[in-house]
Structures are given as C-alpha cells and as structure tokens.
C-alpha cells in the first residue's frame, strides 16, 4: 500500500458560502454518472468552483482500467467493476446490451461520451476527490485512480466543502 500524503484543502478561512458547487457521486451507473458530469461541467461553465466527491460505486468513474484488490473479494470486485467507459445503465442493461444500445444512441445523437465529459470537467477545473474509506474497503489504491483524481479525503473535508457551497447534490 502506497503511503498517502495528507491533502491540504485550500478552503480554510473562506466565507460561509462561496460560489461553490459540490457533488457527491455514490452511483456507478452510466446514466447517473452522465448526470453527475453534465451538472458538474455545467456548474463549472457557469463560473462555479466545482468539486466532485466520489465514493463507493462512484469510484468507477475515476478509476483507471487496472486490476485491483488483494483479497479474493477484492480481486472479484476488480473483475466486475471496470472504468468509466464500461459502466452500464441503471435500468435495461440486460447483461451489457443496454450499455451497447445507449452508447449507439448517444453517438447517433452526438452526445459526448462519458470519457469526453470527464475530460471536459477536468479541463474546466472541476476538482475530483476520492473517499478514503471506500478506497480501503474496495481495495483500490490512490494510484488506481486517474491522475486528476488522486486527492483522497474523508467526510469532514466533504462537510467543509458542502457548508461553503451554494448547493450540494447527491447522485
């Protein structure tokens, strides 16, 4: 396990409410991650300082396509949970057919793909945090996450952000 350096949040001493937006992303479904990145890019494009906090299933959205896990269960998780491009919809996935269908339909309608949306969010300066506890439980290391989302924090850091934000969404 790599040594985790303590992230220093640059938020101390700021006014109670700033022009900030916080999104807590728990879900790992294609549709919900889609909504999360659409809202995050929209908030950032509207001039808000936007943070996404990824926890549990949501971590798939910031994972690299790598093998993870140490225990049997950890390695099993790694088999089932992939990266952002392999997420299926929360309904009608039908063993992957739904994912395939939605990808086709989105392409036909010229909607950005999830990797593209995530890239846009990064380019717009959306800050991406990962939940420490979820990383531990799921046996992911910080290095298993994309380079732009390797800041690992806990609930207190999230609360600080949430109290400073104009809105906090839970997806």
């Amino acid at each position, binding site marked *: 396990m790599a040594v985790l350096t303590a992230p220093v949040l640059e938020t101390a001493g700021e006014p109670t409410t700033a022009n900030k937006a916080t999104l807590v992303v728990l879900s790992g479904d294609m549709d919900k991650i889609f909504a999360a990145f*659409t809202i995050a*890019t*929209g908030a*950032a*494009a*509207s*001039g808000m300082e936007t943070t996404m906090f990824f926890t549990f299933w949501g971590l798939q959205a910031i994972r690299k396509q790598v093998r993870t896990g140490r225990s049997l269960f950890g390695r099993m998780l790694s088999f089932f949970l992939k990266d952002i491009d392999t997420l299926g919809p929360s309904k009608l996935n039908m063993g992957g057919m739904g994912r395939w269908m939605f990808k086709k339909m989105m392409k036909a*309608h*010229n*909607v*950005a793909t999830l990797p593209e*949306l995530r890239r*846009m969010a990064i*380019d*717009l300066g959306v800050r991406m945090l990962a939940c420490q506890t979820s990383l531990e439980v799921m046996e992911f290391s910080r290095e298993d996450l994309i380079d732009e989302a390797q800041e690992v924090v806990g609930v207190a850091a999230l609360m600080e952000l949430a109290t400073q934000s104009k809105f906090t969404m839970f997806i």
Partner: protein
Amino acid sequence: MEAVRADLTLDLKGLLCPIPVVKMAQAIKTVPLAGIIEATATDPGVMADIPAWCRTTGHKLLSMERREKMITFVVQRVK
C-alpha cells in the same frame, strides 16, 4: 439584429447539452473584455441555457434568434 463585428464565431451545430455551454465558457476566456462571440447552434435547449448562462456568469446576451432549426446568438464578454 444588424451585424456586430464578432471577435470569434463559434459553430455549435449538432452539439447537445452540456457542450454548448461548456464551449461558450471556454471561448469567452479567449476574447478580450467587451469582445463578442457569435455562435450558431441547433440544440433547442440553448434557447433556455444560453440566457441562463449569461445571467449566472454576468456576460451579456446581445441577441438570440431562431430560424427553423438554426439558432444564432451573440454574447459579449463583460468580465
């Protein structure tokens, strides 16, 4: 609206939410203060989104018109 000299023309045709707004946010930084962007889009959603984006960011929507499927709008950078 009579032609204003645009500092930048942006082709947003065929793009759906949230891309038009994202592209505007990126483009507005590339024009000088008081600079003007003229954009063309086809997503009917921009009729609501671009005015809302201008209100939240403080940039000025100089004009917006829709002809058939083609939507043209002009935004001036304020800050």
